[in-house]
């Protein structure tokens, strides 16, 4: 066996050019596949990220009766035993921030608009959500201030600018009418258009005071690693809170079912495209492997003439193929990683294409990729196997031929 490995290795270096070209074919095929996959994955992840890190969090804990009536923001259905809930969740590696969303009427010009307001704790919220980074004008909220942070789209609709006073009319937890006069301290432009157009943020302490919340909170927003597959964590959360009555733990997927359909999910065309890339890569690999082996009938003939057994010959070729496959796959990983790095870090900026859109604010035209380790692993294994498989067949032919025929061919 050692001899065969050594033979295979020697052959690889002997036919350096062939090895390189073949390995290159594998590498390019693999690299482009991984790059495209990273792109598609990134776009999908981006839209999910937009939901999670700008709007919903990875999951929410709320009272079951609140969840049932989510659209009306029933302030009376606040979370009971809030500190106990938080205590239970902390050891699960879950990070939390408290929120009180409510609906309010804002007055502009001649009419009014109903928007969604979120009472947030600027400290914890600023750490977990990415809204802070999206602030385009002014600044993020400070705890306790009479300030409002609004989306750029909303600012445009209200014709509001930094420093303007906005009046909000709403109902308290008990049902009394309440009004706020808030100064616009910041305008944000996030990748989430819904947030930009219909959300406004103000400090939780202010909301607590004005809406008669008395320290109660209606939503506990959770973040955890592995947010893209939240089901398992949500189950853990449910278990941890099992004995506390009337609570619901909901993942962002469930919360977003309304939006979900409208997001850039996995389009079928993308899958088809990847499949085609796959095919071409397979063709590239198989083609070169086949050719490489085919050209060596003489060699095979000689080896047989010298007494090597058929099995040994096939094995040696297989090992060679594996070797090329390995080099190629590694190269492919490197190329894929390099291309992915480009698209993950900088992405492709389409903003210039989208400029001149009469939409008031810039639509972010940045397409970013994302690291997809499973794809790397899977593709690596495939490249390796494919190389071996595609060398198997021609080798078989070679060993079946007459030795003399082998020697004669070239």
């Amino acid at each position, binding site marked *: 066996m050692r001899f065969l490995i050594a033979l295979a290795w020697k052959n690889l270096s002997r036919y350096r050019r062939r090895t390189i070209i073949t390995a290159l074919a594998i590498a390019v095929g693999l690299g482009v596949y991984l790059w495209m996959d990273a792109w598609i994955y990134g776009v999908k992840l981006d839209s999910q990220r937009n939901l999670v890190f700008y709007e919903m969090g990875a999951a929410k804990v709320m009272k079951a009766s609140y969840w049932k009536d989510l659209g009306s923001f029933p302030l009376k259905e606040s979370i009971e035993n809030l500190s106990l809930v938080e205590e239970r969740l902390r050891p699960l590696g879950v990070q939390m921030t408290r929120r009180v969303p409510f609906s309010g009427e804002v007055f502009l010009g001649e009419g*009014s608009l109903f928007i969604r307001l979120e009472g947030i704790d600027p400290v914890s919220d600023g750490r977990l959500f990415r809204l802070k980074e999206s602030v385009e004008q002014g600044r993020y909220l400070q705890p306790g201030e009479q300030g409002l942070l609004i989306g750029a789209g909303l600012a445009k609709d209200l014709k509001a600018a930094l420093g303007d006073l906005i009046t909000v009319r709403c109902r308290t937890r*008990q049902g*009394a*009418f309440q009004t706020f006069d808030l100064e616009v301290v910041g305008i944000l432009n996030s990748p989430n258009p819904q947030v930009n157009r219909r959300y406004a943020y103000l400090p939780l302490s202010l909301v607590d005071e*004005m809406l*008669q919340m008395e320290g109660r909170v209606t939503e506990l927003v959770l973040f955890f690693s592995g947010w893209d597959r939240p089901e398992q964590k949500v189950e853990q959360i449910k278990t941890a809170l099992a004995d506390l009555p009337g609570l619901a733990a909901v993942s962002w997927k469930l919360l977003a079912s309304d939006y979900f359909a409208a997001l850039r999910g996995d389009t079928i065309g993308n899958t088809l495209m990847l499949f085609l890339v796959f095919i071409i890569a397979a063709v590239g690999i198989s083609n070169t492997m086949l050719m490489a082996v085919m050209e060596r009938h003489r060699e095979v003939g000689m080896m047989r003439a010298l007494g090597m057994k058929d099995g040994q010959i096939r094995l040696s070729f297989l090992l060679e193929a594996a070797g090329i496959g390995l080099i190629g796959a590694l190269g492919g990983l490197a190329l894929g990683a390099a291309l992915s790095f480009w698209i993950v870090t900088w992405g492709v900026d389409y903003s210039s294409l989208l400029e001149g859109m009469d939409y008031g604010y810039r639509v972010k035209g940045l397409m970013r990729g994302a690291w997809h380790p499973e794809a790397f692993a899977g593709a690596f294994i495939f490249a390796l196997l494919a190389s071996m498989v595609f060398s198997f067949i021609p080798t078989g032919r070679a060993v079946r031929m007459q030795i003399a025929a082998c020697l004669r061919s070239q």
Partner: protein
Amino acid sequence: MKRAIFALAVLIGAAWAGRAISAEEIIRAMERNQVHDTAEADGTLVITDRFGSRTKTFKSFSAGEDKMLIAFTNPEEKGQKILKLQEEIYLYFPEAEEIVHLQGGALKQSVMGSDFSYEDLTGEKGLLSLYDASLLGEEELDGRRTYHLRLKGKKSGVAYPLEEIWVDAELMVLKKANLYALSGKLLKDLVVKEVKRIGGKNVPVAFLMRDKMKKVSSTEFKLANLRIDQGLPPKIFSRENLSW
């Protein structure tokens, strides 16, 4: 001796007459003029916002404070009915095959786009059950002597936590009301435009409600052919009867 007793009676009477009236008494007197055993009228609602004015006409029936039926007669909403039974609101639409029972948050919606919400219709069981009233004094409003009262919500759930009302001192009828939010901001005001003397009562028959936070938003409410306490068949205030 008789002259002395007479003089004493006059003195006591004068003292009694000169005694200051309380806020609660004013409100009760006002509500006596507003609440009737039965009442029916032809009504008009003129709703104005930045898109213009729209007029709705209706027939209204009420019994006490608990029961009310409004049947719309204008062409666009003809046949629609609103039935109030205690705290519950039921809507009937000619083109619907079931009766809509408005509940919860839906009650906060405005009626026909006016400045009244269904919640406003479900009404309170009298102001005094919800508010603590205090008499701030007498004022002149549009040439009439009025009592200026402040009403502070007793519990935290009252929709308008603070109200100021001006009651016509002579007619004991509401002249104007200001409705405030918890923050103290003026939300709406209500002005009584016309009062009629019917069945021994001074009844407000026309008033205007304005949303003071919007530039252009008002609802004008008028009652004509008002008949009070002349009896009404109780079955008209039933769900079954809505679909006649």
